[in-house]
């Protein structure tokens, strides 16, 4: 009999597992895949002639950057709660990133003054309004679980005159963490604004594997168990109370279950005829192109780390009506994290919004062909953003919404989960809790903090 079973060895599941096992709970994580990481994992691809590369699934940027010793921030809470050392993350900072629209470009970095000066320069009429908005954001208590929904777009439009500025501010925050199309709840906006603009971007030197190694090592050290290749097939409930989970190896009894697989995915597996709320699969998914070059982009030609690119008058953050939407993209140059080494292969990553249903409907042959189109468009975007770059592509991979679904089991490949969230982490079933994506906190740092706070609340404090 376990005190807690955790479904999924992604960021939130590992974090929840560490917290519970640290305080002597008997905990087991069941993970369907053969490796940890979930939406932020890694994989290998081999091509003739015997060429192989390792890829991070996600990880453009870890948000919530702090300097060593900085206190009272989400990342410092994460370190304390998981008893991890700042240096072990081996963080490398972004140079700067930019939001590039047809008529304006705004740069930002881990020093908020840069964004302020950019707004002052390009939107002088709105500069004071922007400063007031920042003041509101700093004062806002985004962690109040009782806050009611407030449309960010409405609120920003009341406070900022130029709609272009509203769109530009919202663009990175939407694509880095909104499960909803074109708008987001203001408290979610505040979380994202702080984590991206006020704190900033960094990346562990070893990419996502550094984070996953830290988390799995800690979890095993404090006495947790992980079973890979072991899907939870059913969540066994009796009289609205958790009994345990069903796996291919049999029934596993547990007092509590913490699920990171998503709200619809969790409810679908509940054994008993409990009436559960509706939770639709989320609308937003992506294609991702990863390009390897025979050299790195020279810094004189391109020195940004991430570009939030949009080539239309409006930023459309929504499921496109075509396979993918090449009018906007997130463009990441992981080589431009500091201190950057200039020799060796270059890497560029391009994300487009994509329509899961359309990808899902393709025959195998057409599917492969369409991935080639995504690849060609991605290379075209490289040439648009870095016109003088003469590197040659040596290796590439494209993944689609169906790939995301196949490896993470998130319905419809919805990267930010369902539009329905369980903010309090509870479900109608006693001792069944939701962590991670569908508790409403996304991104690497967000989902780790979700695992921590929900396991604290119900796994550690809830007991007597």
């Amino acid at each position: 009999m376990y005190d807690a079973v955790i479904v999924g060895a992604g960021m939130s599941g590992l974090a929840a597992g560490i917290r519970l096992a640290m305080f002597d709970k008997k905990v087991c994580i069941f993970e369907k895949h053969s490796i940890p990481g979930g939406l932020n994992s890694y994989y290998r691809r081999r091509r003739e002639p015997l060429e192989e590369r390792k890829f991070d699934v996600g990880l453009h940027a870890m948000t919530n950057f702090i300097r060593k010793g900085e206190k009272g921030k989400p990342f410092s809470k994460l370190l304390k709660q998981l008893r991890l050392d700042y240096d072990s993350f081996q963080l490398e900072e972004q140079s700067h990133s930019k939001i590039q629209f047809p008529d304006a470009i705004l740069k930002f970095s881990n020093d908020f003054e840069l964004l302020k000066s950019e707004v002052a320069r390009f939107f002088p009429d709105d500069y004071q309004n922007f400063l007031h908005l920042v003041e509101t954001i700093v004062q806002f208590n985004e962690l109040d679980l009782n806050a009611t929904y407030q449309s960010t777009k409405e609120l920003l439009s009341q406070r900022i005159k130029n709609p272009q500025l509203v769109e530009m501010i919202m663009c990175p925050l939407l694509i880095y963490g909104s499960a909803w199309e074109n708008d987001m709840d203001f408290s979610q906006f505040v979380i994202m604004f702080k984590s991206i603009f006020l704190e900033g971007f960094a990346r562990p030197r070893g990419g996502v594997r550094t984070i996953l190694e830290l988390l799995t090592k800690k979890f095993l050290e404090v006495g947790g168990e992980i079973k890979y290749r072991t899907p939870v097939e059913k969540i066994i409930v009796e009289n609205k109370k958790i009994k345990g989970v069903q796996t291919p190896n049999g029934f596993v009894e547990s007092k509590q279950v913490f699920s990171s697989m998503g709200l619809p995915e969790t409810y679908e597996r509940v054994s008993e005829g409990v009436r559960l709320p509706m939770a639709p699969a989320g609308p937003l998914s992506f294609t991702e192109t990863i390009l390897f070059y025979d050299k790195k982009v020279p810094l004189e030609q391109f020195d940004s780390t991430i570009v939030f690119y949009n080539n239309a008058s409006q930023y459309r953050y929504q499921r496109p009506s075509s396979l993918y939407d090449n009018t906007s993209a997130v463009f990441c140059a992981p080589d431009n994290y500091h201190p950057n080494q200039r020799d060796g292969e270059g890497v560029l990553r391009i994300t487009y919004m994509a329509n899961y249903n359309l990808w899902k409907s393709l025959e195998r042959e057409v599917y492969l062909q369409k991935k080639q189109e995504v690849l060609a468009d991605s290379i075209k975007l490289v040439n648009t953003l870095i016109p003088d770059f003469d590197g040659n592509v040596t290796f590439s991979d494209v993944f689609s919404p169906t790939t995301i679904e196949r490896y993470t089991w998130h319905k419809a490949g919805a990267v930010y989960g369902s539009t329905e969230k369980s903010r309090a982490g509870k479900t109608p079933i006693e001792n069944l809790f939701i962590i991670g994506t569908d508790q409403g906190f996304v991104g690497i740092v967000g989902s780790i903090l979700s695992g921590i706070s929900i396991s604290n609340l119900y796994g550690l404090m809830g007991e007597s």
Partner: protein
Amino acid sequence: MTTQDVKQVVIDIIADIAPDEDLSVIKEDVSLREQLDLDSMDFLDIVMELRKRHRVEVPADDYPRLATLASCVEYLTPKFIQ
């Protein structure tokens, strides 16, 4: 355990959960939250460590009694003697 021992127990725990804090200058009667960068998550850890290391239970209603080092000692000492 003497009150001095109990005080040391609390300080040792804080040193482990907040390794970046300088604990040599803690004032006994000033709230720990004010002097150190401790939040409600850290107080939960103090409580969890007390249970794990010393089998001392602090019910949620009593968390406010851990506000200062002096109040910790006053509240916890009888529990260590029991």
